[in-house]
């Protein structure tokens, strides 16, 4: 098997700016193959965005301590010098954010922002860069793209701005796209358009995508594989299909059960996960989920966090009692 395109090993991110150091990410390992879309899902404070930002070294360097290693397409991200890092951002990896209005520059037209970013990375003429910007706008299906290149961000609707930001991210032909809650601020009918656009770009351009979201539904629409984060760690990782069919970590099980979904009986109670996510500055010993877990035993509350357990079908879960979550049926991995 070839090396994965992205290889994250034992990534730890501790923010040291506050009164107490906060370990936002505590040992994340993740591989992403070329052309694969992986979703990181979790609640606020689970470390999903911080993990993704670490791939582009966007976490504030003076106020954070970063451990572990990240390799992307042969680059050792932790060791990149300033110039190579600037080249790496944009040409190898690009990122889109939740709120395009904050991510785009309000005083330049979109055409100017895209051509600038192309010419910053490649020695091409202004006209050439503009032609490429136009192609990008067509690629992300912005109506009347020629005219829209001369628009300012505030002149566009929310969905159009998100498309424009995707076009900007793709300006230098990156191989990896990082998407941080890209559809959370969008309306339902627009969200599905953007999700399908991401899927289409993954397929047509062979992009690898890391998609951070708290919305399992959005993750399922885009991702081949899903990694569930809780309190700074990946607690379960599986193909989207396996995860939805038979979640194995008690947190994932609880999360899927607690959703209000279609065919529920009126007035029925939702299955809930008791309590609230833990304080990252003050994590309990053992498994961070143990205080809320329906399966927890004394061993879960002792010593170190549980290790990742490899399960059938190439999936993993970080749980000592994972044999108890095996579906009672045959439970063979999906083909």
């Amino acid at each position, binding site marked *: 098997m070839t090396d994965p395109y992205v290889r994250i090993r034992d990534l730890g991110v501790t923010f040291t700016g506050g009164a107490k150091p906060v370990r936002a990410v505590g040992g994340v390992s993740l591989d992403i193959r070329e052309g694969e879309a992986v979703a990181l899902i979790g609640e606020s404070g689970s470390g999903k965005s911080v993990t993704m930002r670490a791939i582009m070294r966007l976490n504030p360097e003076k106020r954070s301590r970063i451990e572990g290693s990240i390799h992307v397409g042969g680059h050792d991200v932790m060791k990149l010098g300033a110039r190579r890092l600037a080249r790496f951002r944009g040409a190898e990896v690009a990122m889109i954010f939740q709120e395009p209005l904050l991510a785009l520059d309000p005083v330049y037209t979109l055409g100017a922002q895209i051509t600038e970013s192309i010419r910053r990375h490649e020695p091409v003429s202004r006209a050439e860069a503009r032609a490429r910007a136009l192609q990008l706008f067509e690629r992300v299906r912005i109506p009347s793209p020629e005219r829209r290149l001369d628009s300012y961000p505030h002149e566009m609707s929310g969905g159009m701005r998100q498309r424009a930001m995707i076009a900007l991210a793709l300006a230098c032909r990156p191989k990896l796209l990082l998407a941080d809650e890209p559809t959370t601020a969008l309306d339902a009918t627009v969200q*599905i358009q953007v*999700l399908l656009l991401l899927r289409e770009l993954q397929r047509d351009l062979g992009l690898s995508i890391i998609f951070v979201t708290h919305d399992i*539904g959005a993750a399922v629409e885009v991702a081949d594989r899903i990694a569930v984060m809780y309190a700074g760690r990946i607690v379960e990782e599986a193909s989207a299909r396996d995860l939805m069919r038979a979640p194995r970590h008690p947190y994932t099980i609880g999360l899927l059960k607690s*959703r*209000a979904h279609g065919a529920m009986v009126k007035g029925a109670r939702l299955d809930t996960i008791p309590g*609230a996510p833990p304080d990252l500055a003050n994590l309990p010993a053992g498994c961070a989920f143990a205080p809320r877990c329906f399966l927890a035993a004394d061993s879960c509350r002792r010593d170190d966090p549980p290790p990742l357990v490899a399960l059938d079908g190439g999936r993993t879960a970080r749980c000592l009692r994972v044999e108890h979550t095996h579906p009672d049926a045959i439970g063979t991995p999906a083909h």
Partner: protein
Amino acid sequence: MSPPDTSRADSARPLNGAGEALLTVRGLKKYFPIRGGILNRAVKRVHAVDDVDLEVMRGETLGVVGESGCGKSTTARLLMELIEPDEGELIFDGCKVGSRELPLKEYRRQVQMVFQDSYSSLNPRLTIEDSIAFGAQVHGTPKREALARTHDLLARVGLDPARFAGRYPHELSGGQRQRVNIARALALRPRVIILDEAVSALDKSVEAQVLNLLTDLKAEFGLTYVFISHDLNVVRFVSDRVLVMYLGKVVELGEAERVYTHPQHPYTAALLSSMPSMDPDHRTEEPPLAGDPPNPIDPPTGCRFHTRCPSIRPFCATREPPLADVERDHAVACHARVPASGYHDDAAAVPDPEKITA
């Protein structure tokens, strides 16, 4: 006497035959002026809520869904009279709001609201018991009594009063703060609670806890809810009836399961099929609608959905469809659903655009 004919559309009859209207809204309108030019005159208007009629039945949960700019939050604020409507009237339990029988202050005691942002809804300088007891004191309850009730309510929403009563809002998590806001809404023994995206900012695992709490409280205190949310799954779970809004207009109103399983308005149908599938083997293949919702500053003429509608007739661009019953307890504002609307004549007179291209 002939037996009652249930199929007959009768606009005078309340939509939910079993209940009776607790809160009736007629002809509600709110336009926000956009000022500009040298004289700072209103040059344009945002049509936030445009001629909305609705009834909230006693004891029901009325879900309100729609995309941003559809007017659902403005409707909520109008229902509380937090902003003044340009036109329209509110009738609560048979009395006109603001009349001598029902002054605004008394109405607001009976109708309370919970907002999306749990932090900015609370005064950061007041302990949570003071926040909760404040309203009752304004309405004349002695402080001691108000505090005693506050402690009862805190316990009722799942916060131990001994631990939480003296805390400040920043010392609580988002889910706990939203419980405080719910307790505060209950402090005046209201009959209606308007929940404007009340669970939307919560993490999923906490959201489920708060939804269960709302279900319990409704049964215990005999409440009526107006539940506004963009989350279609949650609205389906909590609502008895659902109101779908698009650009300031009600486009569909009916019994929740019926609307979700048999949407009659093309917008409702598109909105529902925009929900992510949750099944990796059957992912959505085509977006049901293209483009964004139009700007409510210059809403389209005629049917406001005609610019995105998959089954438009030329007729739709000029004439506005009224909200009409299509079956029992199910009203839709779409020409295609009303046999006498002229939509079908129009189809015959003007060839279907699809047929032209074929």
